[in-house]
């Protein structure tokens, strides 16, 4: 229902060679008419192709399509503002690839995008797919900007062509605990114990591992860690364990669907704590969470990646997104959107479509004009954004507000949460 038509975006086109190849193999089964889209590339003014690989179908399609919307918006904005000026106003074109959430398709699609001239590729939302895609990008010497994928390993393999703007699991866990400690201190309350509810996928496992490690330094102790399966229809027992622990704080990590279910169960069972705090929670700082659960979400906190909502640059991006897609821009989408701008910035500086030159330009990125709550975007030698920041958010009066650090805060944190 949220799908929109965007004629200015290049949908996937088959090269002639691909076309002949695939048609010969299975000509009988498919109406060739749907494939015979003539290539537009020659006739148009100079265009720079940027590829992306996301799960556009399958069970993560919801997330993948949101990210694609963010990419399309950034491309549209950049082109409307005159394209890449140092390259004669060359326009960007987005080439889409569907991973279906499968790592082996990432190989196929990465090769295709490289073969069709993508100067850089963004992706892939899932860590498993990203791990495989970046490996091939390294081999093919194609700059790869991770849109969203939190696994630390992605930038720990000494790759030269992999860049990540988004905070990784380590940065998010460390900063969330840090922000939390500051908020607690400022409020004068005492918090000693944390009960942690998390999904048992790689994502939840790695976040909770880091939190466990950083908590003692801030005077917190994780007294119970309750893993749950995101596929489980009923989470009563898991939430019951959290409730029985009677900890000062409840923390939670999960994806959107299970995050909603787990939170609803916590409210049903009247889990009491000084606050319920997410860490990289797929639900707690998602506008749909508030929209769908209503006032019971009041005062929920989440340490997560987010845009810097105080500056006009972000506000205009959010407004444009709402206009185009009729739904608020999610936090993951922010990084897909920002990723395109990072590539555009590097293109402005290297003035060429040469991938190696673009990689070098990306490595030298020092971008202060962005929509993130951090200093300039600078990549370390491993390709990780050294200033990548997570902020603490809180739902106040049905709106998700950044409450910490103070520099980016839209409102003061309410802590402890009134009963």
């Amino acid at each position: 229902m949220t799908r929109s038509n965007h004629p200015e975006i290049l949908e996937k086109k088959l090269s002639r060679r691909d076309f002949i190849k695939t048609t010969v193999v299975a000509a009988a089964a498919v109406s060739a008419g749907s494939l015979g889209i003539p290539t537009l590339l020659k006739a148009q003014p100079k265009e720079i192709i940027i590829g992306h690989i996301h799960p556009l179908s399958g069970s993560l399609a919801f997330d993948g399509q949101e990210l694609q919307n963010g990419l399309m918006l950034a491309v549209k904005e950049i082109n409307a503002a005159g394209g890449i000026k140092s390259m004669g106003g060359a326009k960007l074109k987005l080439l889409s690839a569907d991973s279906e959430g499968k790592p082996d398709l990432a190989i196929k699609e990465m090769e295709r995008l490289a073969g069709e001239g993508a100067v850089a590729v963004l992706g892939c939302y899932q860590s498993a797919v990203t791990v495989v895609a970046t490996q091939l990008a390294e081999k093919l010497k194609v700059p790869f900007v991770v849109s969203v994928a939190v696994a630390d390993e992605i930038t720990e393999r000494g790759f030269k062509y992999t860049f990540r703007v988004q905070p990784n699991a380590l940065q998010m866990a460390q900063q969330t605990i840090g922000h939390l400690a500051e908020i607690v201190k400022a409020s004068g309350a005492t918090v000693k114990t944390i009960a942690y509810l998390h999904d048992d996928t790689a994502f939840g496992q790695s976040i909770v591992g880091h939190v466990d490690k950083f908590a003692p330094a801030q005077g917190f102790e994780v007294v119970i860690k309750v893993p749950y399966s995101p596929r489980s229809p009923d989470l009563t027992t898991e939430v019951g364990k959290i409730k029985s622990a009677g900890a000062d704080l409840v923390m939670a990590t999960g994806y959107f669907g299970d995050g909603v279910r787990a939170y609803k169960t916590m409210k049903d069972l009247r889990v009491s704590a000084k606050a319920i705090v997410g860490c990289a929670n797929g639900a707690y700082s998602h506008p749909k969470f508030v929209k769908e659960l209503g006032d019971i979400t009041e005062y929920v906190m989440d340490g997560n990646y987010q845009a810097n909502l105080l500056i006009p640059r972000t506000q205009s991006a959010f407004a444009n997104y709402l206009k185009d897609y009729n739904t608020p821009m999610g936090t993951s989408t922010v990084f897909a959107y920002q990723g395109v701008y990072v590539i555009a910035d590097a293109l402005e500086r290297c003035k060429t479509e040469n991938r190696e030159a673009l990689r070098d330009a990306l490595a030298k990125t020092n971008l202060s004009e962005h929509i993130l709550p951090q200093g300039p975007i600078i990549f370390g030698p491993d390709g990780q954004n050294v200033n990548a920041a997570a902020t603490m958010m809180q739902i106040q009066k049905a709106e998700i507000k950044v409450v910490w650090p103070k520099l980016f805060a839209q409102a003061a944190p309410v802590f402890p949460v009134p009963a």
Partner: protein
Amino acid sequence: MADPAADAKTHLGRRLSGRTWLILGVIFAGLHAVPGIAPEMIHNLIMIMLFAIMGQGWNVLSGYAGQFSFGHSLFFGVGAYTSSLLFVKLGISPWIGLPCAMLAAAAVGLMIAYLSFRYGLSGPFFALIMLAFAEIFHISVMSWKYAGGAGGLLIPLKGTAPLLFQFTDKAPFYFLLLWLLAASLLLVWKMEGWRMGLYFQAIRENEDAAEALGIDSLGFKMRAMAISAAMTALGGVIYAQYLLFIDPDSTFATVNSVEIMLRPIIGGPGTVLGPLLGSLILTPLSEITRSAFQSYSGVYMMFYGGMLVVVVLFLPDGLMGLFRRIARYRKKDRG
């Protein structure tokens, strides 16, 4: 394997003419030139052959011996994880890990086969118990910290290291799979004529009658399971080395069981060429539908589902069955 013609002579009653061998030999030799001519096709061909081999594994148990498995991702995962763990944790080359993986999968398969067939499971009950075992392994590996848990195993990239089964280029994988595919086709083709192959089919057609004729159906079903599991595990090992990354979802998940069994089902279950034929059609077809309907998520999977329905309804013996029917029809026409 190297000299198929010599094999054919000793193979009573199942001879192909010298001319057929010559044609097959020329095709096989010619396929070696593909990486040089059309490098952009290699990935697709690798996936086609990989799934053809694993589909052939499924075919031995389910197509020939008639024991329908809905959980072959289990052997895919056991294969991939065995060789990768041996390499990552103990530094053992995947070349040695490969036979180990096949043995491990066969052992798991034999255990399940013994339990299931000993207690007389068949039909959908056997299919479902395979699904249940695959899911138990899936969930257990997700919680198995030593094997990387849900995060999976990253196989360290060593550059081009043939002794460690690593190639930065795709061509070696292509050649390897080409030979393994030829070997698997030859093996199953010969198996059809062996006593074992005939017993498999007898069990499939009528187990009670086979038993009455003195065939040890439990023993032969277990043999089918062992061969089937080992062949599928072989695919798992190569997949792991090709991607250099595995996790529980990309190996043990049910969707892989569907991918593996769909190829022989479409090509023709219980035929030598069925899995390859199915793979040759399905891989490019899913590619085409995916690219044609890219902006409409879901359409191409709808197509997949629809195709499955159509094949079951109209081509219960797969494409090979269709070809056979056409051939018979023509013969009748002439006669």
